[in-house]
């Protein structure tokens, strides 16, 4: 069915890195937001072969003579953002067939998509691309860097787990739950049958009905392999839970599988249940919305993220595909505006998603030993006036605002005329 997806799966889960263009890179920063540790004023980030070897005050760092130096002494340096769950840059994120755990997002990633370009423009350095929520068992995802000409170039982790969804697909909510249970039971039955046949083979061999030199050669059905791995907890499931009503089923499934919960917007009525998971979760990009009371018709603003924060549930933020929710700064500021701690907001796009993705050893903060993935900002990461000046991935400068043709086009760079007008003109 899909030869390439099987090939990519064979790449294994080892971390694929890009060869660092510079052996030694030093970034002089006005301010370093390490995320994991304290903020460093007037510091230096030193990278050798794409890895961070030192993050400290400028006075405490000796920059090697052969280092390439990036001067950001009037800017803020921090780790690039990590997206825990996205369908950005994907062509056809939802296969029409519902039960397709054997497909891979690798075949749908469009390296030329402007979305990846936008990632760098917004300081996003790592994305987890996975099939969409309009599915039942929807295929495996991969962790990518938004930089490179081919999927292979972009790959950080080639197989990140399988997508499952409780989003009703043309039927009711219960039907979706039933279908998912059925699909899983089918594989369990297949496995039981497989084991039964294998056992019978061994017994017949022992009894001499089968020649002693004949071996059992049958392997697990490749189309069922991802779910078999899921059942054996060899691979992770990424379960989309559209709303509060599906949380109970999600809790049940989490007993059976190694699952990451990806929530839709309306989960505020199931916060205590979600807290029972005792795990970090991924939340929807719609961070605030209104709810009308059926009785009083009074409107209430809801921010599920704030309720999760209050319940002590760490969460990773998602970005919208358009509108202001596509900007990391807006998403984090929306959290803070709703009373969430600033630190938690920043971690929701750095450390928490890195932890959820199991890549916190290399990603999510500016820490010695981690990969040199950092962004240089013109100001505070939560301010509306801040722009991403440049992005460095694994010690390599991959984005510079001064060389961003699309941005220059939108700003129609021209010699500026006189200052802004003091009084509006005559019109009426």
């Amino acid at each position: 069915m899909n030869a390439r997806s099987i090939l990519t799966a064979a790449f294994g889960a080892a971390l694929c890195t890009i060869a660092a263009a510079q052996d030694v890179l030093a970034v002089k920063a006005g301010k370093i937001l390490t995320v994991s540790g304290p903020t460093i004023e007037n510091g230096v980030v030193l990278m050798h072969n794409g890895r961070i070897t030192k993050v400290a005050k400028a006075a405490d760092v000796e920059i090697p003579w052969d280092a390439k130096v990036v001067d950001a002494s009037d800017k803020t340096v921090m780790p690039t953002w990590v997206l825990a769950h996205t369908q950005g840059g994907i062509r056809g994120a939802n296969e029409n067939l519902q039960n397709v755990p054997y497909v891979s997002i690798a075949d749908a990633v469009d390296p030329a998509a402007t979305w990846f370009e936008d990632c760098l423009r917004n300081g996003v350095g790592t994305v987890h691309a996975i099939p969409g929520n309009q599915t039942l068992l929807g295929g495996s995802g991969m962790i990518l860097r938004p930089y490179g000409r081919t999927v292979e170039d972009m790959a950080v982790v080639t197989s990140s787990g399988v997508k499952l969804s409780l989003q009703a697909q043309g039927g009711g909510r219960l039907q979706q739950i039933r279908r998912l249970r059925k699909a899983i039971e089918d594989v369990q039955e297949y496995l039981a049958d497989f084991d039964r046949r294998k056992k019978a083979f061994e017994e017949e061999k022992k009894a001499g009905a089968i020649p002693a030199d004949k071996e059992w050669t049958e392997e697990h059905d490749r189309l069922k392999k991802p779910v078999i791995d899921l059942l054996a907890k060899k691979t992770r499931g990424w379960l989309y839970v559209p709303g509060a009503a599906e949380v109970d089923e999600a809790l049940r499934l989490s007993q059976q599988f190694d699952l990451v919960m990806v929530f839709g917007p309306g989960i505020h009525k199931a916060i205590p249940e979600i807290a029972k998971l005792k795990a970090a979760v991924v939340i929807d990009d719609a961070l605030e919305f209104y709810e009308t009371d059926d009785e009083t018709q009074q409107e209430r603003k809801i921010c599920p993220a704030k309720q999760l924060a209050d319940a002590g549930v760490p969460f990773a933020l998602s970005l919208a595909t358009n509108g202001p929710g596509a900007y990391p700064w807006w998403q984090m500021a929306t959290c803070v505006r709703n009373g969430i701690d600033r630190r938690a907001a920043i971690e929701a796009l750095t450390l928490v998603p890195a932890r959820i993705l199991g890549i916190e050893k290399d990603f999510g903060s500016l820490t010695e030993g981690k990969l040199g993935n950092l962004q240089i900002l013109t100001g505070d990461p939560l301010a509306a006036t801040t722009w991403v000046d440049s992005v460095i991935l694994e010690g390599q400068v991959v984005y510079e605002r001064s060389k961003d043709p699309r941005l220059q086009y939108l700003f129609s760079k021209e010699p500026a005329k006189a200052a802004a007008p003091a009084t509006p003109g005559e019109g009426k």
Partner: protein
Amino acid sequence: MNVQLTRVATLLALAVGAATATAQDKITALRGARILPGGAPAIDNGVLLIAQGRIQAVGGASTPIPEGTVVIDVTGKTITPGLIDANWRFGTGSLDRNEQGDEVTPHLRVLDTLDPADRQFERTRAAGVTTVHVMAGTQNVIGGLGAVLKTAGQDVDAMVLGSETSLRVTMGSEPSMGNRAIRGGSVESIYYRRPTTRMGVVWEVRKAFYDAKEAMNQTLNDPQQQDPGLQVLMRVLKKELAVVTTARSEQDIRTALRLAAEFGYTTVIDEAQEAHYVIDELAAAKVWVLVGAPSADRVTGGGGGDGAEPRFSTLTKLAAANVPFVITTGTNQAALDLVREAMFAVRNGIDPQLALDSITVRPAQLLGLGDRIGSLAAGKDADFVVWTADPFDPTAVAAQVWCNGLTVSESR
């Protein structure tokens, strides 16, 4: 703007306030905030004195506070004038504002569709907007008469500042959308409507104004003079009423300017997403420009209506050419709160003071209400917002919204 009408509205506003007159009668002082008065430099650690629904004084820390004043400490907060949305995105009731009976309905009044209990008012108030300009929908060529009203109140009559402030005309493909040229269908079908093209849209405008011109030359008792639609158009031709022309693309903006010049009426260009292509023409025509929802503009495409290509540089270019512009939420349903739209303008390079003026002083001036609203000065309506931080900080919230000297919305 009908001056008499404004006075009547003011009296009504005061009458309605009677129930809570005690709160309004007291002199209240807000002390300690950074005051951005609108159209003037910021005052740190300022004092804002209000009574009887009006501002008594605005000044620095030394501003005298009379004895018996209720003093509210707002140290660390920022106060701006109540925001004014010159093209209010009205989420609900849009069906109510597009009359399907005809393409040219100049005499229909949007005021008659407004329900003060609509949640949209509550949300808008909570976002710091105290005055809105609501227009007829964009699905008719000439949609109807726009109204200006305060966002707080139970009775539209008491909220209204202008019941017939503007006449909306729409260019482009929107008024012809869904209309169908006859092709076998019945002539009686509701789909058999004109216009079906841009040419048709422009012709409907021309025809309407030709008729109005002709009617102006008729004697007073001629039946044509009595036509309510033509009467509105005649007011436009006499420059007693301004047109707001919704024109997104360059082509439509040029057409809008051409029509205004041809018939000699005053127009404001609304939703001018491609204004960046026609800066010189806009400056020469001395028109005001409304720009809706700058937040919707994306680096990688999108955000443009009717084939328009928005640019981040639109507002800076308008500013550089001294074209007066106002930021609105406009027709984009995905628009954010007005203050956030101005924040996106700041992100794209507009000076914060100018951005604030574009949602306070300037719309007040445009709507002919500069003497009452839009800035914080003695004698003006006590409409203001206490923000938890600088209003253009994306983490800021409107902690208190005051309208006519009363708190109409509060948050943490």
